[in-house]
């Protein structure tokens, strides 16, 4: 029950993109097509879960005993960057087709603040290892939900007669704002 609660609160109530406004860059950048946004969600889910587990362990077993918690951000960034590189190298060899499909999005994840955000939030909330893993997975799901929904809306937007100055990014930002407003309706449920 506790884990289900963590997932629901991560997906809907404090959605990483639409309530906490982290990871806006890929949210706007790779939401042109549903297909690519699904690929991005897959890659982000993988990296978020792995990064949270590793950073959690580094934080608890290295940073806290040494009393250097203040170096959290830079340490986490270092680990995430190395991790993304690792995933890229392995994926290129193991599954070239997947590598082709994700191509540009993989290195982009390094600079995705949602990954860092989830890792930092997990240690801030004093969760244990299993809880943080579930929390990371829930947040990744929330990211996917926001991204794919938004991509679906943007595909429909292309078919409408939008006034010329509003086409492209402006209308996308307005829609993103409306989506965020809609997700505010979930606030306070849990």
């Amino acid at each position: 029950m506790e884990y289900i609660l963590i997932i629901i609160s991560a997906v809907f109530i404090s959605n990483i993109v639409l309530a906490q406004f982290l990871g806006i860059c890929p949210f706007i950048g790779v939401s042109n097509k549903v297909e690519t946004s699904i690929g991005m969600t897959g890659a982000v889910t993988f990296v978020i879960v792995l990064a949270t587990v590793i950073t959690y362990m580094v934080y608890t077993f290295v940073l806290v005993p040494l009393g250097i918690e203040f170096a959290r951000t830079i340490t986490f960034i270092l680990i995430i960057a190395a991790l993304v590189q690792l995933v890229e190298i392995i994926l290129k060899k193991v599954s070239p087709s997947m590598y082709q499909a994700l191509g540009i999005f993989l290195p982009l994840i390094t600079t995705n603040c949602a990954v860092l955000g989830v890792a930092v939030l997990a240690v801030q909330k004093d969760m244990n290892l299993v809880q943080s893993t579930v929390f990371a997975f829930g947040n990744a799901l929330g990211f996917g939900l926001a991204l794919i929904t938004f991509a679906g809306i943007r595909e429909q937007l292309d078919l409408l007669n939008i006034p010329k100055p509003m086409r492209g990014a402006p209308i996308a930002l307005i829609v993103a704002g409306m989506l965020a407003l809609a997700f505010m309706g979930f606030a306070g449920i849990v």
Partner: protein
Amino acid sequence: MSNVVLFTIITLSTIGAASAIILYFVAQKFKVYEDPRIDTVEQALPLANCGGCGYPGCRNFAEAVVKSESFDGLYCPVGGNETMKTLAALLGREAVEQEATVAVVRCSGSPQHRPRTNHYDGAKSCTIAHSLYIGESGCPHGCLGYGECVEACDFDAIHMNPETGLPEVTDDKCTACGACVKACPRNIIELRKKNPKDRKIFVSCINEEKGAIARKNCAVACIGCGKCVKVCPYDAITMENNLAYIDPVKCRLCRKCVVECPTHAILEIGFPPRKEKPVATEESEGSGSNIS
């Protein structure tokens, strides 16, 4: 205090060094061997990534070229024969030459010739308008004019003419990649053989309806009368489904058919103005010799 600084430096250096070492060994272990010739071939290509060759990008084309033994079915329409010769020299093979082509828009239905019978207020997309209904005029084959071909062009070679509402190809820029041909839902654009001085003669209509109906909807439609077929001395024109088609390979650009066409559906482009002939003055004036 100094301990904290020391610990931080050591921890970060250790993590950095450890990830560097891990990454190095993983990269060694998972190294993907790539033929170095793929890079050389890719550099020799135009790198426009237009997809005219049938592959998603120049790199995929280069891979296919290096993998296959010959150039069968592999041709870069953008670079043309010159690029293919360079590739052949790089890989030590025989080049296969192909004739250069250029995109041609086969519709002359400007509002002046083809009256608009209704007004469409939906999505400004050729594909969508085509799937919904006949279009703003009565012609089910004519250009819809929302410029999907213009968007498809990577080379800035095709533009809408605001006066006629039809796309126009700039021959010098056109690389015959075929993106506009694929983009047009009505198959109006065709790749035709490139002639010297960009001269071309073609039937600027793809309407297959019966003559009377075609003529009613558009003043410059091909009505399938067959006069051009009879007058052509090289058997280059064929008549199928009430529509004349000029074979670009057989056509010798004699321009006899242009004068003969009663609706001026056959266009001649890039020719010098005709000498005034006493017999056929009227037709030659109206044949639109300088539409370009």
